[in-house]
């Protein structure tokens, strides 16, 4: 057993140490305070998931209803429909949207520095800066009966005069691919930053050993990016339930709603538009819990892949 120091002595030590670090602490404390005020205190509001809360009540005096809201959620087929849609759209986004930025980043990295590289980079970032309101309007026009997509299809001899946004079966693909198109370029930034840190002597050594371009990418670039790829993967998987609200609200219409309603838009519609706060909070809380579970599980899996080191 370690000999215990008297408590006031320890406190004094603590404050001394604190005083020495005051520059660092003064930078950290505002962040901590911010977290407490905006991220932790609002957690208290989650109790309305167990209450029958209306605007007129305060959170404190609304009636407790126990698990009732959750029971209704479990039986609500629209909720389940929105879960299926969310997972399908997020799954497609993950499938294409996760790999594509890595490939693009490697391709950009392999380009010789110059005007062409910079132009390519800028063009690929561009859609990221347009909001979904603008982009969604563009998409709706493109997919309309006389829009770009139909004109292209007609050019290739595929005769069609339909409005693709009204076809529910196409919605998942439209949502996923348009999101990938919007964000893929932006997603390369992190990878490019990591790649720029790779020691060029590795490549030189590999070249000496006769490794070709692809071999270098496979054996040097990708292994060096392993931890950042894992980190991105964990974040992407834990965000599976968090599909894009802005996008959904813009692209949804009464014909594709069955396939386009995602959890977020469902919560938004019930909670904010119809004033059913307790119910919407119950849905939100349930989804958050599942998301945390996903985060933990993917972390365990990627740990295995990263020599038992967690990247979180």
């Amino acid at each position, binding site marked *: 057993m370690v000999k215990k120091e008297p408590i006031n002595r320890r406190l004094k030590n603590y404050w001394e140490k604190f005083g020495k670090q005051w520059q660092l602490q003064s930078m950290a404390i505002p962040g901590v305070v911010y977290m407490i005020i905006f991220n932790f205190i609002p957690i208290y509001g989650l109790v309305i998931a167990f209450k029958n809360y209306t*605007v007129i009540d305060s959170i404190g005096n609304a009636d407790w209803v126990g698990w009732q809201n959750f029971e209704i959620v479990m039986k609500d087929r629209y909720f389940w429909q929105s879960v299926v849609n969310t997972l399908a759209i997020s799954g497609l986004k993950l499938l294409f949207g996760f790999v594509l930025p890595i490939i693009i980043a490697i391709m950009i990295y392999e380009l010789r520095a110059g005007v062409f590289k910079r132009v390519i980079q800028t063009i690929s970032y561009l859609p990221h800066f347009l909001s979904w309101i603008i982009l969604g309007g563009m998409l709706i026009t493109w997919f309309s009966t006389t829009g770009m997509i139909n004109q292209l299809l007609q050019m290739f001899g595929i005769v069609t005069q339909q409005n693709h946004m009204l076809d529910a079966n196409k919605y998942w693909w439209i949502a996923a691919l348009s999101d990938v198109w919007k964000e893929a370029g932006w997603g390369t930034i992190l990878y490019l930053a990591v790649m720029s840190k790779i020691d060029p002597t590795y490549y030189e050594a590999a070249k000496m050993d006769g490794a070709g371009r692809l071999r270098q990418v496979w054996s040097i670039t990708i292994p060096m990016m392993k931890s950042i790829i894992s980190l991105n993967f964990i974040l992407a998987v834990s965000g599976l339930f968090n599909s894009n609200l802005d996008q959904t609200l813009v692209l949804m219409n009464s014909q594709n709603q069955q396939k386009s309603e995602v959890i977020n838009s469902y919560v938004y519609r019930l909670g904010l538009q119809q004033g059913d706060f307790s119910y919407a909070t119950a849905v939100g809380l349930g989804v958050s819990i599942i998301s945390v579970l996903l985060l933990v599980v993917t972390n365990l899996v990627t740990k295995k892949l990263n020599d038992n080191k967690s990247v979180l």
Partner: protein
Amino acid sequence: MEKATVKKMVASMCVAIVFVLLVSGCGGSSSKDSKEKTAKLPSLGKRYTLDKAEPAWKLDTKKETTKLTWYVNADWWNTEFGTDMITKKIKEDLNIDIEFIVGDDTKLNTYFAGGDMPDIVSIFDSNSTVARKANTWAYPLQDLADKYDPYFYDVASKDTLNWYKLSDNKTYGYPDYSNAAADYKSGDIYSRDAFIIRQDVYEAIGKPDMTTPEGFVKAMKLIKEKFPDLIPFGFNDFAKDGSSNGSMDGVIQDMLGVPYTDADGNYYDRNVDKDYLAWIKAFRQVHADGNISDDSFTDDGDKFKEKVSTGKYATMMIGSFVNQGIALQEFATNNPTEKYIAVDGIQSTEGNEATLTQAGISGWMINYISQQCSDPAKAIQIFTYLQSEEGQMLTNFGIEGETYTVASDGKVSYTADALKVQNENPEAWQKEYRIGEFIQFGHDKYKALSDDSYVEAVKQMQEWGTDKLEPQFATENIGPDAGSQEARALSAIQTNWSTTLVSMLRAKSDKEVEQLIAKYKKFEKENSIQAINKVRNEKIAENKKKLGIK
């Protein structure tokens, strides 16, 4: 060492518990008190003695300017006060200074959660919890009028006050544009829905009969032949989330005179009405012929406006054409011979007359005086002032002699100077005059006093609708309460209806339409339509009681 860890744990848990208690304490206390507080009105003292024949704002001797906050639940509300002609006059007359606050439902909720309410609150949804539980946070208008300003009863509509009474027999909110049955009869309010067609198209196709489904389908074909560049038939935009279906359900049903209640006075499911479905089949045929564009289902409000202002649609079932007034006027100004005109079309196959609707007795914006109002006497004076002839003329037309004149027949017209500003400098018109914008207590009957209240392009349409208006007060606000099981089920049904409607319009055959409607009826049954209709019927009965009809 173990002991130390345990101690640490206990200590941190204590901190956590104290923290949670603190936080929950904050949230719970404030509005709990207000819930149990009964409205106790401060005494007038020696400020003025009540006079039934004189509005209290003329009697009030309060010297210092009263500062009031007025929350309007709309982002677009102009928050300036006292800088333009109209609010400057209000400021002088009432000796007040109003600070407007604007926001959306989230902000409104924050006010309630925080318990620190503005003096006056204007909201839009008369079926919301805020409105239905107004007795917990607002003063009853009757109490205020009795105590501070009995003249209020002279200017407020009795029907409207009655309509907004809560279960305690008191009225808490007062709306603008609330039309009583008398207003419908007066001819001062105009219809706003019509079947319209481009004049050049109408003449070119020989003014065919479009009142029957068969005639309608044929006419659309004819239009397609003669005007291949135009879309033969269009309608208002559908809401993205299925919460409204443009002009293709309610408005069409009104055109056909589909009843709102059945013979027993119970709720009538208009969407499955036979007459209506006969027309749905006609529209289906029009769509199958390629004469309705699929884009009409995905266009948003802006795109619709654009198509209206460029005359893209040959004919339109247009709902709320007043809201499209600028677009309609733009097209009419640029193409005087092609302007849209209302004609007879889309009529009942069963011989029913059209029963068009307008703003009902529930009105639009609803105004409340909160229980935390710093000077409730002044607040009710504002309500009285704005509803009185004086206030109405001011907010609708400005100041007599300066911006408008009244002819001997009572017709109001703007002065030459005012008209010049209106036509040449719309921005100054808005900023300096603010005519027709301060509308918390507006009413169409004052608009009717002037010929300049509506744009030229809609006047023929309004004329067409004369005598077609029919009040439907009994079925206003009969939706189930938010948060109830029925409300959730109804929302599901409405979403399903929206999908069903568009699918019917895009169906390949009439048989498919029948299958779709059968599926919809089944869906209704599965989603407790009976319980919903029970709520509706109860509310209809309540409404009738309030309105004094059997």
